[in-house]
């Protein structure tokens, strides 16, 4: 009987996730320019990926993005969760505001920030100019482009992570916090010695999710910068997309890059999971 209940979900999961993943792995050993005719090339696509000079650049961009994205997202989402948890005034409203970007379409996110970050007529630069800060080329300077996409990436997911952490916070036994307060612990001490250690399992989830989201980031970046300027915001998923769907189409190469991405995400997730378990055991 239980299998009957999970069957519809399993069917969808197997059809749209597992089967395409298996096919993708299979296609990574073939060359195909149209998705209908396949020529076996062995490990040729993998060799081509690791021999492609743009891959090193893409890997560097992805590493920078993921590291900053994960750290900033995690720190800020803990901070926001703590603030929202304490807040009494209009808490529903502020929680909705915090969560709002999560509900926006990535394309809309890209378009909104494209306007906001416009060098000549964008509101951000208008404000900066009024304050004497000049007109930075957010979308035409490589370093600023990376800062912009990290910021927007964090902005998009912050509400989601904060809500998860908020649930974790509300699961903490309040008697522990009250006892610490009665013993004279200050608010920072309570956060550092009680709340954060008890939030570790939830924080681990956030770290894993943020790492996965970081590696998978593509849609809003593609709309915002198209991977530019000068490839500075081209991450691994755009590399896969470009190889698989932009002329000239190279489905085999795109699939091989997809397999590489899977291995990376799997390795990071496993590492996070194992480290988290180790910490819990200690």
């Amino acid at each position: 009987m239980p299998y009957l209940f999970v069957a519809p979900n399993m069917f969808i999961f197997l059809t749209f996730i597992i089967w395409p993943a298996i096919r993708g792995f299979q296609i990574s050993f073939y060359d195909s320019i149209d998705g209908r005719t396949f020529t076996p090339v062995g490990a040729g696509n993998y060799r081509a990926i690791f021999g492609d000079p743009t891959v090193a650049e893409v890997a560097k961009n992805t590493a920078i993005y993921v590291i900053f994205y994960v750290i900033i997202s995690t720190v800020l989402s803990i901070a926001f969760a703590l603030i929202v948890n304490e807040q009494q005034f209009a808490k529903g409203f502020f929680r909705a505001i915090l969560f709002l970007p999560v509900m926006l379409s990535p394309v809309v996110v890209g378009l909104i920030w494209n306007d906001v970050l416009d060098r000549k007529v964008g509101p951000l630069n208008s404000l900066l100019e009024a304050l004497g800060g000049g007109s930075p080329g957010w979308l035409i300077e490589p370093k600023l482009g990376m800062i912009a996409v990290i910021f927007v990436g964090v902005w998009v997911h912050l509400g989601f992570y904060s809500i998860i952490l908020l649930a974790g916070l509300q699961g903490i036994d309040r008697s522990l916090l009250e006892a610490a307060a009665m013993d004279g612990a200050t608010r920072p001490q309570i956060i550092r010695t009680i709340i954060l250690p008890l939030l570790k399992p939830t924080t681990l989830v956030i770290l894993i999710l943020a790492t996965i989201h970081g590696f998978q980031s593509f849609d809003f970046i593609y709309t915002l910068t198209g991977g530019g300027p000068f490839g500075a915001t081209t991450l691994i998923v755009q590399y896969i997309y470009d190889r698989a769907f932009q002329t000239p189409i190279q489905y085999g190469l795109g699939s091989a890059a997809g397999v590489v991405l899977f291995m990376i995400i799997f390795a990071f997730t496993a590492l996070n999971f194992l480290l988290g378990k180790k910490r819990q055991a200690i």
Partner: protein
Amino acid sequence: MNKSLRSKIAIAASLVLSAGLVATGLPSAQAAGLQPTAAQLSAWKGKTISYYFYNDSQAELDTTKSQIAAFEKLTGATVKLDVIPFTNYDPTLQARLAAGNAPDVARLNNPGLYINDSLDLEKYLGRKYKTEFLKGSTLQVTHPTTKKLIGVPYDLTVNGPFINVEMFKEAGVAVPTSWNWTELIAAGKKVQKATGSEYAFAIDKTGHRVSTVMSHFGAYMVDKNKRNVLRSSKFRAEKAVKMITDLYVADLAPRDLWIGTGTKYSSPTAIFLGQQTPIFFSGNWQVASLAKDAKFEFAAVPNPKELNGGGWPGGKFLTAFNTSKTPDLAAYFVYYLADTAQMEEMDKNAFWLPVRVDLVEKGVKYATRSSDMAVFQADAGKTPAAAYGIQSVPTLTALIYNNLRDLMTDVMGGKITVKEAIAKQIVFIDEKLATLKK
């Protein structure tokens, strides 16, 4: 001959003719003006075909919808219109083809990408059908090996500049009737200075548009014999590319739009409509949307003339796919959209330049913006024959244009020099042409 016998012969003749038509699918264009037979109408009734489509203006979409409605009434078939944004047009279509979900008919601007997926239209529309269209335009939809017609020219596009007439007047700069590139840039700078606009000039981010500028300076990339001719005109190409990239480096053109959009196509239409630039280099397909959206007086002006004047050829095409379950219906839909009446209606409504020989000879009378269209038509006539050379390699044109665009981005960012960019483009074209020989 009595009346009864005459009618019997007439009936017999029409039966023989009908049987012949049914047996060979659709009659040739010359045979019967392609009115569907009763048998075909009966077979098509209730059938559905999909039409993969993008539009540059609302007028194109509205006209297409009304023509589809008329087609559905005529045939009893249903046409499912899939309107796709241009930015992801080819990737989406290629993915659909790969997934076995090809549409029946598509409007294309890169027919070379679909050569092996396109239906042989001659089988359904006759061998002489292609003669109804301009020869230069049919080249891009002629299969390179079989020489069969695999698509139909839908419109002819000509690249060229638009100006904001009000900004020109405000700056005291006369609307040009002829000019060269030095004069164009000087005028742009003068208007920018006088009006305080953000930019002096803007051009679509595509190698296709830049090829026009190169053509003005006498530089071309591929000739009609599929040879790399950039090598022999590299100094001219360098001059043209340097002139454009210098405008972007100096912030006289919208750098954000070119550099800040990665490897995507982008058009400064919104920048022109926002009166941020007095000059916008694009093409005639913009006329309808500019006429609808511009809150100021604008005009198409002649292409600058250096060694050459004129525009750069391009266009849209209609193709039916060979995976269609009702290929005769798909072919007839292509025929219907491209017949004289429908095309004339579309040309008038959407400000297209005609590609049908009969319409070119007759001339299309545009209700408005006729002076703009006259400018583009005049530039079409001045376009050098060498500009059509790249159409000899329809499978490579998109690659060659895109690589030029990306190299220009690197020049704007100071990563390579113009000289290096052209040298790299020469090598790239060599490599791509070599793939044709394999």
